[in-house]
């Protein structure tokens, strides 16, 4: 593939990737975690307040990078924010993942870069989580950038490469403290590749140039000096960027130290994960084959898993022949080590696999180029490429636009049910007939795991109170609307509930919420909105 053709095709691909990610961005109800992040960002947007919490929520880059998106959208308060603005942030960084491939430069051919970009652009899980307002997309973008710049730095350890390395490392760490896994696996991959390739060539050199050993030592020292200063710059940038973000731009310096203290908490969570505990093969089982109940379609990434396998085998087979091929070996080792570490940790959520799956997709691009080279018939190449693009596109459509909240979708995890939007719509309708309008008093009584994403959906109601248990609320009155978990509702007295009409709504599969509407408000609503004849059992 020529440079010019690659440039045109890459721009076209960026357009397709942008469309796929932006189309109906508000389709999927806000996830518990998204709403949580949105609330944190809302505090930063409205009050300029952010303080790193070592117990939860990860690093601050997501919030700070969301600011320009809100400003450009003219949204100045939490209440004004929309799903489109928030998810637009992760869509932007989703595109950055594609652009990061360009940083691989001469270490990947144009064809390899193109096919890797195609697979990343249409990858169902990647598209799904690029439309998801959590840190993971930023983490993948900065993580891949770090992996590539680490390689580039060790190929050419100058100040320019050191700057990129330091920036990517700093942003990666400021996105998630758990990025230490990525930092460790990429350095380990680099060391292993060095042993496998450079080590051998160096030993050959040593045996043939024994007489020049003194000179070599001097050269080594000179090399170390040459590397030391750029490396120091990279480390300085890493620490500086991390400090700036974790200290909330110098407002809370303690935040930087807290980010290291957070390791113990995350370590504990990783090995005592509660209901997030999944088996070793969890990630690959999601990618391999998944089918929901009834007439659910098949969700599978088998073609890309096979191509990634080709890419990995090819990378190892061609190790040490050329520097460019060693990059793929390094990437293969990084992806394998990272997959191994994440699979060994009992705590698992589907989005955690993105960092190594993105690595495997780049290798799948290289594998596919090799397969195309093996095929001599032009038409067969076109059919194969078309079939792959069709499969990726079809799967991306099913995952993101049709089964976006369906439990049979392998990437749907503790997702808010679409039915929950009916509860939100009913509350909105009630506010339109309530005397106080949006100022009506709403009580939410539910444990935290059953409260979110309500604070997002009720952000335009100023009179909302949240209680985590029924014991904290002596009387439901004077609330005209109460949203209560099924368990907490059971604790209220029958007499008290007589003054409310109740409806069930699904928060998540098997988690039902109860909407209590005070009788007078319901009557008002019924008269103004419903009307019509009453049935045999009419109200």
């Amino acid at each position, binding site marked *: 593939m020529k440079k010019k053709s690659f440039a045109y095709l890459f721009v076209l691909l960026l357009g397709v990737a942008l469309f796929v990610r932006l189309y109906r961005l508000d389709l999927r109800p806000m996830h518990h975690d998204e709403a949580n992040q949105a609330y944190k960002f809302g505090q930063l947007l409205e009050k300029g307040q952010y303080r790193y919490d070592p117990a939860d929520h990860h690093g601050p880059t997501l919030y700070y990078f969301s600011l320009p998106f809100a400003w450009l959208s003219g949204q100045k308060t939490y209440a004004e924010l929309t799903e489109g603005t928030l998810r637009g942030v992760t869509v932007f960084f989703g595109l950055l993942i594609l652009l990061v491939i360009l940083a691989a430069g001469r270490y990947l051919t144009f064809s390899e870069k193109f096919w890797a970009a195609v697979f990343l652009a249409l990858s169902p899980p990647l598209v799904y989580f690029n439309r998801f307002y959590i840190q993971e997309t930023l983490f993948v973008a900065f993580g891949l950038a770090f992996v590539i710049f680490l390689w580039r730095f060790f190929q050419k350890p100058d100040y320019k490469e050191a700057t990129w390395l330091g920036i990517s490392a700093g942003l990666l760490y400021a996105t998630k403290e758990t990025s230490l896994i990525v930092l460790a696996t990429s350095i380990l991959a680099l060391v292993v590749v060095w042993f496998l390739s450079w080590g051998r060539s160096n030993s050959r050199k040593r045996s043939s140039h024994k007489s020049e050993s003194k000179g070599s030592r001097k050269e080594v020292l000179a090399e170390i000096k040459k590397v030391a200063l750029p490396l120091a710059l990279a480390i300085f940038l890493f620490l500086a960027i991390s400090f700036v973000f974790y200290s909330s731009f110098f407002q809370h310096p303690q935040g930087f130290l807290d980010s290291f203290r957070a390791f113990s908490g995350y370590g504990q969570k990783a090995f005592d994960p509660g209901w997030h505990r999944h088996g070793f093969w969890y990630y690959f089982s999601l990618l391999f084959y998944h089918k929901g*109940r*009834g*007439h659910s379609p098949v969700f599978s990434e088998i073609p890309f898993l096979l191509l990634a396998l080709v890419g990995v085998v090819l990378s190892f087979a061609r190790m040490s022949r050329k520097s460019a091929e060693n990059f793929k070996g390094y990437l293969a080792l990084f992806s394998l080590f990272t997959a191994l570490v994440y699979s060994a940790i009992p705590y698992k959520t589907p989005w955690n696999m993105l960092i190594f799956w993105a690595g495997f997709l780049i290798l799948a691009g290289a594998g596919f180029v090799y397969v195309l080279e093996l095929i001599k018939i032009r038409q067969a190449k076109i059919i194969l490429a078309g079939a792959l693009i069709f499969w990726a596109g079809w799967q991306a459509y099913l995952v993101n636009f049709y089964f976006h909240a369906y439990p049979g979708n392998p990437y749907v995890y503790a997702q808010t*049910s*679409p*039915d929950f939007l009916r509860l939100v719509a009913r509350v909105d309708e009630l506010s339109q007939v309530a005397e106080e309008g949006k100022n009506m008093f709403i009580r939410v009584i539910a444990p935290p795991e059953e409260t979110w994403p309500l604070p997002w959906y009720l952000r335009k109601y100023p009179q909302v109170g949240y209680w985590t248990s029924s014991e904290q609320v002596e009387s439901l009155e004077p609330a005209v609307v109460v949203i209560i978990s*099924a*368990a907490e*509702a*059971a604790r*209220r007295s*029958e007499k008290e*509930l*007589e003054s*409310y*009409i*109740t*409806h*069930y*709504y*699904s928060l998540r*599969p*098997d*988690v*039902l919420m*109860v909407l*209590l509407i005070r009788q007078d408000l319901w009557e008002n609503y*019924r008269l103004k*909105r*419903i009307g*019509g*004849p*009453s*049935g*045999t*059992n*009419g*109200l």
Partner: protein
Amino acid sequence: MRTRTKILTQVLLLGSFLLFLLASMGSILAQNQEKVELKIQLPKPMFIGTPRNIKTPNLEPVTGKPRGPFYVPKGTELVSLKKPVTSSDPLPVIGELSYVTDGEKSGEDGYFVELGPGPQWVQIDLKAPYLIQAIVVWHYHSQARVYRDVVIQVSEDKDFVNGVVTLFNNDHDNSSGLGAGRDKEYIETYEGKLIDGKGTKARYVRLWSNGNTANDMNHYVEVEVYALPVK
């Protein structure tokens, strides 16, 4: 004389009251003698846990305990088994309409029929008029779900234009257009929902629903109609 009349009146009043009391008790005892407990064969419970004890005026309590006995006149029998079923969605998304009356109540895949989204009905033709005593409905019981706008009607008219009797209606906001109901929403369980037929004479039973809390589709595992033949 006056005192004697007064005593006589009091004795007569007391006697009348005792006679009335005995007659009433006799009547109740006679009624109970005629009634027998309705025995319903229940499927294996699939869902354990989430349904919680909700006590609200229009929310069915779910206690996790078996449903109490329901009494029907002696001679009441299951009259819906294998009877023909029609629907507003003649081409179900999953399963077949015959599943509604095939006697299989398992909550597993392959035992339920799925109808399209929005208000949909299934109708059972009992092939003859009966005095309906009870209707038991299992929509879907392998997950904590609430089916919306459940309306159960019976009639002798297959088109449900004339002589329609609504036995159950929890469509509180009249979204199905059959009139607003005041019955309670309920969580699906393996016990099914039992509706009192009140001895209504009818040949056809029509059951409406309008999606559920898990999705927009309408499901039926089984419907049983218990009735007495019309003499």
